[in-house]
């Protein structure tokens, strides 16, 4: 696609513990272009949310960036001071969290929270900011925004609150929104509305989205490209269409076949046996090796680098030319 907005290179997020360092995100690299939607899927604990938190500089201590680079719009941001990072947050990079019921401060009117955010990032007086806040509420589909702006969060339903949260995220006119499971806490009927709203608003503005979720349906509908994460690493990354139609990494294959198909024969759903390894017990070599059907010798020795296969990149020795030749013999 077009110009690169965010580039992450070998990002490591680690937690110092009494028994040494735990790596929750282990050398993750990817790029997001301007206006692109990148979906990130994976099980709970795969490091998706931590990657997002690391980008926006909101890792909860003792978690910290242990290595790698985060380059945003040509500028390295992983080593910025608190204050410099704060000026990026909300203004250039915004974040939406999972639970809209708890994302808004219950003691302030939503208008107060919007105006406060707008005035932090744009130089507007109270009246202008209020007008802008009403516009934003209107854009995210809150009915009667002129009166609802003075309501408190508890006077909104979950879906409406997530719309307010989106309005708040858009208030600083960011270039990138990190949406961390934005629909998980919502009713299924509302999920689709929120996702399509987020997508259309970002498309109008040319805002890129990093969409973190474990919902393959959401990714399939929304993302231009997607990355599959497994125990802190990227297993496969590529165009959403390719990845869903033709997954290459055995883990992605397992993920895709665990989604029920609406058309076609009703088959038993396939599940991947076992569970993701704990951080203090990651197997040597490829971390997926205990659960992998196609495991062979090199998998126990070393983890595969990302290998380009067609339009995708896959971290699996199955696609390594040399091993392919060895296996063919």
């Amino acid at each position, binding site marked *: 696609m077009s110009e690169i907005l965010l580039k992450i290179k070998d990002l490591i997020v680690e937690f110092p513990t009494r028994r040494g360092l735990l790596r929750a995100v282990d050398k993750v690299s990817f790029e997001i272009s301007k206006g692109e939607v990148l979906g990130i899927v994976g099980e709970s604990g795969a490091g998706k949310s931590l990657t997002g938190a690391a980008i926006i500089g909101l890792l909860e201590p003792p978690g910290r960036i242990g290595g790698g680079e985060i380059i945003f719009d040509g500028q390295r941001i992983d080593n910025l001071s608190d204050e410099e990072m704060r000026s990026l947050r909300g*203004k250039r990079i915004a974040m939406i969290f999972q639970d809209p019921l708890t994302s808004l401060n219950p003691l302030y009117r939503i208008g107060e929270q919007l105006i406060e955010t707008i005035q932090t990032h744009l130089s507007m007086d109270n009246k202008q900011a209020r007008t802008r806040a009403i516009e934003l509420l209107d854009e995210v589909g809150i009915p009667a925004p002129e009166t609802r702006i003075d309501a408190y969060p508890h006077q909104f339903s979950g879906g409406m609150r997530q719309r307010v949260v989106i309005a708040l995220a858009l208030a600083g006119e960011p270039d990138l929104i990190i949406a961390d499971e934005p629909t998980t806490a919502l009713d299924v009927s509302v999920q689709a509305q929120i996702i399509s709203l987020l997508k259309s608003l970002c498309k109008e503005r040319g805002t890129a989205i990093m969409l973190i979720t474990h919902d393959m349906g959401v990714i399939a509908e929304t993302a231009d490209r997607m990355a599959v994460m497994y125990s802190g690493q990227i297993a496969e990354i590529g165009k959403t269409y390719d990845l869903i139609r033709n997954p290459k990494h055995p883990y992605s294959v397992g993920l895709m076949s665990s989604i029920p198909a609406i058309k076609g024969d009703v088959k038993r759903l396939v599940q991947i046996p076992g569970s993701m390894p704990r951080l203090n017990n990651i197997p040597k070599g490829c971390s997926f090796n205990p659960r992998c059907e196609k495991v062979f010798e090199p998998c126990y020795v070393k983890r595969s680098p990302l290998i380009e296969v067609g339009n995708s990149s896959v971290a699996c020795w199955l696609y390594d030319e040399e091993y392919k030749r060895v296996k063919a013999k």
Partner: protein
Amino acid sequence: MLAFAIRRMFQSIIVLLVVGLVAFSMFNFVGDPVDSMLGQERTDADVERVRIQLGLDQPFPVQYYKFLQGAVKGDFGISYRQGRPVSQIIAERLPATLELAFVSAVLAIIFGVALGIFTAIRRNGWAANTIMSLSLIGVSLPTFLIGILLIYIFAVELGWLSSFGRGDVVDLGWWRTGFLTKSGLLAIILPAITLGLYQMTLIMRIVRAEMLEVLRTDYIKFARARGLSKRAVNFGHALKNTMVPVITVTGMQIGSIIAFAIITETVFQWPGVGLLFINAIRFVDIPIMAAYLMLISVMFVSINLIVDLLYFAIDPRLRLDKTKG
């Protein structure tokens, strides 16, 4: 909200009636006031005459009823010892106690909240850890010991502050204040610190605990993600949310500041109602004791009422009578 306030008023009145009953009946067991009034040289006829004069010959319910009848009008009878109306004696003494309680409450709240916020935000810094350790002293040392220590250091050794009394007071007609003279202001420092130290450490610990809780919530994370300044996040968003439980405890503490002033007033010979009460116990001066207990319970009850109303001011979720969305 008005209905709520009225309901609470009714509850408060019932509480006061019960307190009155308990206090009043208790005094039948603390000793015979007639003994201490008449002294050694007395005849049975004297005793009988004084009993009738004080109304002590009447059955208990009648005595209680008469007490209530007077109490509603602010008339608590005549002090056995001083021979003056109790309400007058208390009115003279109350300003001293209220001024002391006010200063120590203000100190406790200002320092308690400020230190609580500080120790929560810098929770791993050495300064915060030192303050937390020191606060254990404030929580565990008994009030009288703190008072005596302060007297020893600042009055005896350093000689900076006086160790007893209120200093010079200015009579405003209905209120005698120590705030308007230098000696009055100097005199209030030590007792106010003594009285407020425990409350301060308590408020500080609660503010800290609540603040740490709130700082972990999603809306604080989201406020940070929106790029708000540290100050706006910590003081605008986090502090307001910590206030509800803090106000509860603070309210209760202000009640106990007034009640526990007894000890501080004794240590510093502070001429307030607490000291009056202690002296009244010694002489079995029942009207003063009863009036004091009623006064303290009225204060407790009204502070609680104010606290409940403050919740409404702070938390919009409680204002149910507003239109729902």
